[in-house]
């Protein structure tokens, strides 16, 4: 998953500053790295994506987060957006779509 995403993003000219294997690690890394944008899976071990979004937004209200979701997770996505995520992309990933979304979030 992360490898695929890294591949797509790097091909699109972005730099990956850090990766996290679960929500908890994500919060810590976000604190230390302050990335321009974060992509976040909904289903993760230890701490779920939505929970992590809440924490990150609490620490940094300007944080930009894009949710990665599978089809049929509509309610989860909505919850994540309520929690403060700006965008979402749907798995399976289409590289163009993801890049468009990232650029839009960065530009906004």
């Amino acid at each position: 998953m992360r490898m695929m995403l890294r591949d797509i993003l790097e091909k699109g000219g972005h730099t990956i500053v850090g990766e996290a294997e679960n929500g908890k690690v994500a919060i810590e890394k976000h604190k230390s790295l302050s990335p321009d944008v974060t992509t976040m899976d909904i289903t993760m071990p230890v701490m779920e994506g939505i929970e992590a979004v809440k924490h990150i937004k609490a620490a940094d209200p300007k944080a930009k987060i894009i949710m990665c979701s599978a089809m049929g997770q509509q309610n989860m996505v909505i919850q994540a957006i309520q929690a403060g995520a700006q965008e979402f992309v749907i798995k399976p990933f289409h590289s163009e779509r993801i890049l468009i979304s990232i650029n839009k979030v960065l530009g906004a």
Partner: protein
Amino acid sequence: MLSEYREVFLEELEEQLQLMDDVILQLEQEGETERVVQDLFRAAHTLKGSSAAMGYEEMKQLTHEMEHLLDLVRSRVLRVTGPLIDLFFQSLDCLKELQQDIMRNNETITDISKCVRDLQDFGKLPDEQAYNDAEDLPKPALSLDTTLKVKEAEDQGLEVYWVTVQIAADCVIKGARFYVIHSNLCHLGEVLYSVPDIDKIEVEEQGDTLLEVQFLYAGKQSSQELQDLVAALTEVEHVKVEALPVERAVLAEIGTRKQSESINEDPSNRDKSKTQTIRVSVERLDHLMNLVGELVIDHTRIDQVERTQRRQFTGDSLEELSQISDHLARIISDLQESVMKARMLPIEQLFNRFPRMIRDLSRDLGKDIELVIGGKDTELDRTLIEEIADPLIHLIRNAIDHGIELPQQRELSGKQRKGTLQIRAAHEDNQVVIYVEDDGAGINPERMRQSALSKGIISAEEAMLLSDREAVHLIFRPGFSTASSVSDISGRGVGMDIVRSNIENLNGLIDIETRWGHGTCFKIKLPLTLAIIIGLLVKLNDQTFIIPMSNIAEIVRITQGDIQTIRGQSVILLRDEIIPMVWLHDQFNLPRGEQKKDHIQLVIVGSAEKRLALAVDELIGNQEIVIKSLGSYVGKVDGIAGSTILGNGKVALIIEVSGIINQ
């Protein structure tokens, strides 16, 4: 396992199909309203769910396509038009065929591919039915709450816009996409209201077919700025920003009240309709009714025993027996009534089928017909409802095909273009009466005479003797049809006599009243239930027979001298009416016995058009009797409808009056 649910599924299917029928008709008559579309959508959705669960792939597919189209209507992408309604009717017919398949052998043989294709094509049609331009989209009425918000925003110097956003059809999780748009708008300014309500998308599973949302937005941007901002969002295909019309806010208040009323109405209605019910299979009810029948028989036997005992003994114990027996009688009659009620259904079930049928027929025949249905909630035994369906449908078809004239013709005879067909049901003296009445051409007795004559049904002499009333009743004779051409709707010439015999088999009567040029009314009388009837016990020689009370017009006593003979047929004259008379003994090859008394008991049976006086030896009295079939080894015997067990344990035969009349 599945077969257990099959029955439940079929019941639900029947219900939902009926519902769809009604709703589509409503849609046609009243036009597109949110409630009607919603109802239809819900029905299609329910069926889709249950048919998928049962593994009926075709039905699932079809309902899915219907659901999809309806969703387009609901989200105002598609408008309800004549062709769409026709298409829905077609799909409904297709569903009904599938239902038949399932009922027959659980296998699907009906080809649905055409129907599915039509539905799919319709969804794709980007022509005038589609609301492509957001301009003519009706703006939803605002609630009072929202109106206040609008005022507030305007007071703060913000611009208020309707922002209509369409997203790409291939977008996944559309609901969430709109949510993102919504949250983006919230960052830019304030979203006062949205259609559909964004907060509810989360709950609704159908969010995935949503293509368009209207937001009521208040913010500082100009409409062009806003347009650009929204258009830049991911997967947004089309944006339209419109300023809120000023008078909108005023109008809204009126709209609000209506809306809040309908909202208030809904839940209470739903609660009411949720009277506690359970589904019970008809078999169980039949069994229950049978048991009650046995009880009735046993009770009459107890009664009989009590009476014989009374003749021999007196005493307290006998008194007690009589009290117990009386009490038992009361309980049995209550029980019987309850079971009977449990078997009763409102005739609505049957009547609800007619609007659609009449719509189709009048369309095919180019007639303009208004249907008036009355007494929908009249209840009668469910077996009766099933049995009466065919005869009623036949009568209705006749009324539309032969009765009500074409609009031009109606105008010529000074009537309204639109013909009226009334179907009413009512309870009258413990019977159910159904009327089928049209204001069409009526029946011409002269034409009836000639037609019967030319078909050799009656002789010229007979034709002369027939009164107008009798001539009209010729319609019930086998092989009679006055229609000059046989259409596939009615008029095969076997119709009316079959209608009559069907009704008579149900212990019912049919009568006809007609005025040439003004219309025809058929009146069908039916007993409330089939299983237990009131019968008149009569004695022939030493045997007891039973004549169903519902067939009996009156009982008279005559003397030997009153019997006259016309062309070898015994007749009596009753209030200036000639009524043929038969000895019931002759029917069953019983010896007539000695005529000890000089008067004869006559039971007059039949309806106005065909009466018959049955001579019997003795009248015993009337009693509730339970009809039992004769058993398959005996089969159908002419003149005998069945048998019953009497109080003394003996079997008595029930006379089939229609059989005897027709001999």
